[in-house]
């Protein structure tokens, strides 16, 4: 099908984009990589009056270091995140999760920030950025502000951003030397996660010194498995102790029930996948 008509602007700086978004009125939409938005427009599920395309803004692409953080431009493609040496070294969990997003063609166009701003509860980058305590830098008419991941995701497809704001970059504290894995469960190729788990652990000698675990699609927003994280600390990095800690993964969750999985099955998946994610992480 063919999208409804819209005005199109492709600004070349963030400031221009913020102005263009304000000028375009309340029915405007920001276009990132377009891998979620364009299918929606084509199916006529949305008909914005204007698109502000961020594709020509060079300052929004790429990964750089800033002290103890990595700064990932919102328009960095999944493909580039997968292959970035800084991400591999300091935020391996993001690379592992990005590997599982959609398919190769979509990863060539789709962007890191686009996925986060879209905030699909089954999106694979939300739980990892939450687990790694990332911060979102958003730009609006009043300048820039920083929102921690723990406050950024509000509901299904809803973030703490105002419609007049643009996600510019994501600041991720360096987790150098941490072991990480993202374990995704779905039924067929390209399918969204039914449940997935992102885990990053720091091992000292043979014990787990710190652990961060984020759950995908166990709520309207990504959630931290805090009980698992606490249970892991100080434990030996062995399958038995990991399994015992992973048994806490579903505590406090109330996931949705749908055609793919009911509540109990999702909670079972959360426990099982958490065990697999941590085991794979520590054996890497």
């Amino acid at each position, binding site marked *: *099908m*063919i*999208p*409804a*008509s*819209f*005005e*199109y602007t*492709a600004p070349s700086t963030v400031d221009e984009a913020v102005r263009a978004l304000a000028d375009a009125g309340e029915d405007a939409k920001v*276009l990132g990589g*377009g*891998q979620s938005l*364009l*299918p929606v*427009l*084509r*199916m006529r599920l949305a008909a914005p009056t204007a*698109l502000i*395309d961020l*594709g020509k803004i060079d300052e929004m692409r790429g990964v750089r270091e800033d002290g103890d953080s990595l700064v990932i431009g919102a328009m960095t493609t999944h*493909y580039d995140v997968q292959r970035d040496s800084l991400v591999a070294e300091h935020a391996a969990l993001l690379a592992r999760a990005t590997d599982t997003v*959609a*398919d*190769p*063609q*979509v990863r*060539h*166009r789709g962007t890191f920030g686009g996925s986060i701003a879209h905030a699909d509860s089954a999106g694979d980058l939300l739980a990892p950025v939450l687990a790694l305590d990332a911060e979102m830098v958003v730009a609006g008419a009043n300048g820039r502000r920083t929102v921690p991941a723990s406050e950024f995701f509000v509901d299904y497809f809803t973030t703490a951003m105002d419609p007049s704001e643009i996600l510019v970059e994501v600041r991720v504290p360096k987790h150098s030397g941490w072991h990480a894995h993202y374990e995704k469960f779905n039924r067929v*190729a*390209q399918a969204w996660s039914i449940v997935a788990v992102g885990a990053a652990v720091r091992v000292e000698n043979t014990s787990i010194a710190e652990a961060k675990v984020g759950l995908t699609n166990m709520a309207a927003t990504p959630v931290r498995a805090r009980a698992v994280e606490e249970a892991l600390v100080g434990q030996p990095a062995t399958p038995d102790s990991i399994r015992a800690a992973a048994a806490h993964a579903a505590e406090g969750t109330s996931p949705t029930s749908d055609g793919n999985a009911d509540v109990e099955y999702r909670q079972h998946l959360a426990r099982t996948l958490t065990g697999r994610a941590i085991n794979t992480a520590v054996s890497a």
Partner: protein
Amino acid sequence: MRISVTVDGTTYTDDVEPRLLLVHYLRERLGKTGTVVGCDTSNCGACTVHLDGHSVKSCSVLAVQADGSEITTIEGLARDGQLHPLQEAFHDRHALQCGFCTPGMIMQSLDLLADNPAPDEQAVRHGLEGNLCRCTGYQNIVSAVQDAAQKMSPGAGPEVERVGDEMSGRHQARTPATSSGGE
């Protein structure tokens, strides 16, 4: 809005509506009907083309987003009446039944081989995750891609020279087929 794109080596300048999808531009404006539309959901991959050296689903790109870019479609692979080794391999290995998914399968396979010139079966299946064959002829598609990989590998014969040039031009930032091993 005025755009200028290079498609299969020829530069075109056209006025297009912002809502025009790249696949419709290729098919309806340029007559490049080798690239097909297989679904309305972005799942099938039949419309896969290369945009600045990377495979994309051309139903999920606006023509205006492609302004200033270089595009390669299935129609740009054969040279001087000579099929591309991937096209030959799909033919030799019976990697198609109805053939509708084939243009996308071949364009995605070419992208896969640019990243990984010698993929094992698992890697081929993973690399073609975004392409659906409703005849479910995946077995022969996988074997065709591996067959082509072998024929395109350095030192495999004169045909490689041509493919090597093509790939290093198209995938400059990536792994040119000619740069690894061999002579």
